[in-house]
């Protein structure tokens, strides 16, 4: 039985998250800005239609923003991460095997699940996700991940598909491939696309029609695999399990008990700096941060308290500042006065190599000026190597300085009791 893989991808995910709680913005132009409000990282369809590009600096399109009264939002990752986790848990009901590929897309293995009518099943997925979460999605299906990606691209571009497209039929596949540019293929970046164009390979079909060994000779095994995938031969498996179980832990028992949140925060920031250094030393990034704290469990005369909390970052990082800020947020969510704390620590998880090919560009935008960050962190590590532990990231008291500029951030509607959406009676 051939495989059936679906790629479910949210439409303009960040914008859709904002619109759920602002129905007045449905049909109006909306953009979401990067961490420092400098760059456009998500656009509603109305904004795309105005020709505003992904990654455009705000100042360059200020004229259009004013003229069309485009609504701007700072990125609200707390909201997006919560909405993403809702979408993913709805998707889990449809498949025994789900790969969360990014904050707004997932691969589903539907082999044997929907053999009689894949389109109806795809429509069911689309409808259920929207009904439960308010997030509109498109569903692309095919015998390989690369074809599912292509199907999703086409489902988004051509409204007649109703947002669901199945490319398991080879004749239908060829028809589509002949009219789509090769640069739209998953894993074909603009440089590779330019080289392919020089060889006369312009459409997806031109590439799918190539002998695999020729592509392997002229390019590499990865591109050759892409060609096989386009031919309907599955080469890429679903990554259902977290591939990396590596962890970095940094914690310590205190010489004397700590009672203030500020003291714990200082210690924790120190642990974070050490952990982030280790992370950068092995040239990795972490996608998960957890923090724990506890009183002395062996002193039964004292009131006991122990907590741990963690969260998945919207994008993996090796930036001390992000790690410190996140860890401190977690600490604040757990800290309770009136206890004598003996130990706290930070644990970094979901560790991956610093540069993963094929990672969505979106995250580079979202992470802000990644280049500058890397330089800054390198400088920090050098100073620390020459003068051990001399340079630290400011922790408590300077907390505000950590926060990226986010003047137009919406409410944390789903994670904070004080910020719930208001409904009129």
């Amino acid at each position, binding site marked *: 039985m051939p495989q059936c893989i679906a790629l479910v991808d949210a439409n303009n995910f960040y914008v859709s998250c904002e619109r759920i*709680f602002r*129905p*007045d*913005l*449905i049909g109006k132009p909306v953009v979401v800005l990067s961490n420092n409000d400098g760059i456009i990282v998500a656009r509603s369809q109305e904004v795309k239609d105005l020709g505003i590009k992904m990654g455009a600096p705000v100042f360059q399109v200020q004229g259009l923003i004013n003229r069309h009264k485009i609504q701007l939002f700072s990125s609200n990752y*707390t909201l*997006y*991460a*919560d909405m*993403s*986790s*809702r*979408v*993913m*848990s*709805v998707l889990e009901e449809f498949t025994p095997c789900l790969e*969360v590929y990014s*904050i707004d897309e997932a691969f589903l293995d539907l082999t044997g699940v929907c053999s009689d009518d894949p389109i109806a099943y795809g429509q069911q997925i689309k409808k*259920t996700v929207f*009904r*439960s*979460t*308010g997030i509109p999605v498109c569903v692309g299906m095919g015998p390989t991940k690369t074809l599912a990606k292509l199907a999703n691209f086409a489902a988004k571009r051509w409204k007649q598909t109703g947002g669901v497209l199945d490319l398991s039929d080879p004749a239908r596949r060829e028809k589509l491939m002949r009219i789509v540019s090769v640069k739209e293929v998953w894993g074909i970046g603009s440089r590779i696309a330019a080289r392919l164009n020089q060889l006369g390979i312009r459409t997806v079909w031109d590439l799918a029609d190539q002998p695999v060994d020729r592509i392997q000779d002229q390019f590499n095994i990865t591109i050759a695999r892409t060609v096989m995938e386009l031919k309907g031969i599955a080469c890429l498996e679903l990554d259902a399990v977290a591939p990396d179980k590596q962890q970095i832990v940094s914690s310590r028992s205190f010489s004397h008990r700590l009672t203030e949140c500020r003291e714990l925060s200082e210690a924790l920031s120190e642990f974070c700096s050490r952990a982030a250094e280790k992370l950068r030393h092995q040239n990795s990034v972490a996608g998960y941060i*957890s923090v*724990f704290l*506890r009183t002395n*469990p*062996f002193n*039964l005369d004292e009131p006991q308290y*122990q*907590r*741990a*909390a*963690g*969260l*998945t970052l*919207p994008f993996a990082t090796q930036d001390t500042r992000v790690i410190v800020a996140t860890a401190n947020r*977690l600490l604040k*969510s*757990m800290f309770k006065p009136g206890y004598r704390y003996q130990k706290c620590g930070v644990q970094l998880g979901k560790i991956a190599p610093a540069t993963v090919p094929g990672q969505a560009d979106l995250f580079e935008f979202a992470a802000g000026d990644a280049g500058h960050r890397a330089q800054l962190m390198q400088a920090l590590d050098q100073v620390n190597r020459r003068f051990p532990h001399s340079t630290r990231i400011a922790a408590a008291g300077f907390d505000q300085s950590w926060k990226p500029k986010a003047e137009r951030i919406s409410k944390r*509607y*789903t*994670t904070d*009791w004080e910020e*719930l*959406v*208001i*409904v*009129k*009676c």
Partner: protein
Amino acid sequence: MHIHLVQLLSPSKTPTALALPLFTGKVAAGFPSPADDYIEKTLDLNELLVQKPSATFFARAQGESMLGAGIHPDDILIVDRSLEPVSGRIVICALNGELVVKRLKNQAGQWLLASENPYYPDIPLHEELEMVVWGVVTNVIHPL
């Protein structure tokens, strides 16, 4: 992109199990409590109030048009988006771009957004009115 925050009040995916990911066990030293065998579980409000965590949202009520239904100003509404908005249910809907709470009613073929307060009129639905049901209200949290 799951957030696993220790936040006892949020409708977490697996309600109570999430609360304490680490150090949930008992202290290693000392005798086990003789009561351990009798512990079944603690009562969890999520279990009572949240059927589908992924589709459950909270909203804060403003206004007095639904007093008769027990919805007071500043109450927290528990909303399940996955439920069918049938006649008789209290719904949140986007009415001309604004989120409002009313009782959905079908009276002799005419759909209404009914208030539960004689001082507030019912809103009959018609072509020009832009109305989308946002979710079905299942419970009210009202502090006394």
